[in-house]
């Protein structure tokens, strides 16, 4: 099983990307999974960033300094297992913070942090992160698994809620280019019914997944490039 690193694109990659992502032709084996250009071309979504009324992005930037050690500059984390918040729909980040504060989602680091947040803090933070440009996380993607994950994601209708480019919308998370270990942890958690779930949808969907399916999905999603055009948008 070969492993490839997500890297910068060259002309050859561009061609390969167009072949696979636009023309849907069989993918050659030796390419990296970083379809930035093609996705930017086929992305026609013009979306609005929906934030809570009264949210202050500038205040959010200041408040986010406390989050920087884990979630990284501009919300692009580098620690495996920690999600990037850049380009997350504001409703999503806001709901997750509420769930941490209410104890419906638990984490050793996040729970004590969220307890002290006011509704305004949450709105400001969520609005700030929604406006940041997400970057793909450095990770080794197994091309074979990523190719297997794509039709699986289609058959699971992930795009119905997460959007056609998996960039999330409203209360639904961005998956494209998200941290590999984090996606793995969350999907395994949904399957085990131990991960918080706003409306029960993900727990239901994950029940049919095998560990093999989860691996394939995560290779596909972590390797999909985030498309800034629809970052944080609601698309609806």
């Amino acid at each position, binding site marked *: 099983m070969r492993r490839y690193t997500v890297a910068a694109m060259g002309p050859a990659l561009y061609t390969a990307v167009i072949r696979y992502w636009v023309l849907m032709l069989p993918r050659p084996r030796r390419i990296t999974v970083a379809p930035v250009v093609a996705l930017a071309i086929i992305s026609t979504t013009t979306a609005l960033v929906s934030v809570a009324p009264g949210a202050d992005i500038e205040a959010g930037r200041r408040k986010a300094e406390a989050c920087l050690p884990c979630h990284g500059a501009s919300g692009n984390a580098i620690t495996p297992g920690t999600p990037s918040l850049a380009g997350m729909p504001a409703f999503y980040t*806001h*709901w997750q913070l509420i769930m941490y504060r209410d104890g419906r989602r638990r984490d050793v680091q996040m729970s004590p942090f969220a307890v002290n947040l006011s509704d305004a803090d949450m709105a400001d933070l969520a609005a700030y992160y929604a406006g940041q440009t997400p970057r793909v996380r450095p990770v080794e993607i197994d091309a074979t698994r990523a190719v297997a994950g794509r039709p699986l994601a289609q058959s699971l209708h992930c795009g119905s809620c997460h959007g056609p480019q998996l960039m999330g919308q409203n209360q639904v998370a961005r998956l494209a280019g998200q941290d590999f270990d984090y996606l793995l942890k969350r999907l395994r958690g949904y399957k085990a019914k131990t991960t918080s779930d706003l409306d*029960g949808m993900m727990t239901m969907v994950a029940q049919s997944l095998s560990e093999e399916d989860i691996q394939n999905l995560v290779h596909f999603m972590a390797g999909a490039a985030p498309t800034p055009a629809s970052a944080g948008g609601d*698309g609806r």
Partner: protein
Amino acid sequence: MRFARSTGIILVVLLALGAWFLSLGSSEGQQPPPAWKQGQPPELANSPLAPVPAPPTPTPAAKIPINKVKLPSGFSINVWADGMNNARQMAWGSKGTLFVGTRVAGNVYAVVDKSGKREVKTILKGLAQPSGLAFKDGALYVATIPNLVKYENIEANLDNPPAPTVVYTFPPRETHHNWRFLAWGPDGKLYFNMGAPCNICMPPDTHANVSRVNPDGTGFEYVAFGVRNSTGADFHPVTKELYFVSHGRDWAGDDFPNDTLHHAPKKGLHFGYPYCHQGDTPDPDFGKGRSCSEFAPPLLKLGAHIAPIGTRFYTGNQFPPEYRNRLFIAQKGSWNRSVKQGYRIMTVDLKPGQPPKYEVFAEGCHEGSTVHCRPTHIEWMPDGSMLLSDDYHGAIYQISYKR
């Protein structure tokens, strides 16, 4: 000859069965889409229509555009209480506490009068869509997705609610359309919905109905069958008979089918889902070989996709006499329609021997695609004014009448 023909029929049936098995085999791994998207025809696969998401925080009273609401002459509306994210069904305690349920917020709130000022307390957290509430003999009944629970002596313990006791456990596994209303019947039983766990499907035998149990959880009975998703019900103040609303299926057109008001004067009637919609049109798939005449028709078509929810008869004395015993229906949709409609309160006048009269009471909650408010559930103040929850803004409005 006859033998040959029946052999032919059997062969055709066998071939069809074979094709069916093959088609299942080829679609192995294909999952049903999310429940709200299910039943969407392929040509609408890229439709931007989707249910309106609940915002993460309530809107402060000062920012709710309540002045957009238009009412009949003499009526006025104001924000009665705010700060209750995702506010849904309301129920009065016997000591003057208003309890408020929610869906995705997972909270139950209590609004109490504290030396002349209204105070909102979050009394329960982290429940699974505690949309339906009812109160009896000091206990708060809460309908969540998995079960019906009650909190004894709740009003004396708002700051430290007792552990709940499970009154009744709902049939398992289904979440979609199984956030519930609760309504006390004239028989002292608690009525609730168990919706179809899909947009359009053959529901499990346990679902797509209105049912009831005794207050202690015994005596479960189905009351009405073939009900896709009822979100509100009440009993006529004079006849004591059950009236309930139901949401029609999605993705079958902007103007079809109508959401409906039903009258169930006896238990056991079947109202058509999934075979027949709005009493007169068979479903394109499930209606094959069935006829709408097999089912009890709706009493009234309410409009397509308007999402009727709060459903209450007026028995108070504040509103003008012509409103007495009229049914008020709050409508929090539409989403599955290219041009929005609904977002209003209607009344239904049910005079014996006359067709129901369906009239606008409150409108203005949307202008084009802009939504200003979402009328959700209705409760009555002791003085006869109306309380109306809005699960988008997380607030409760009061509608009063003054001559």
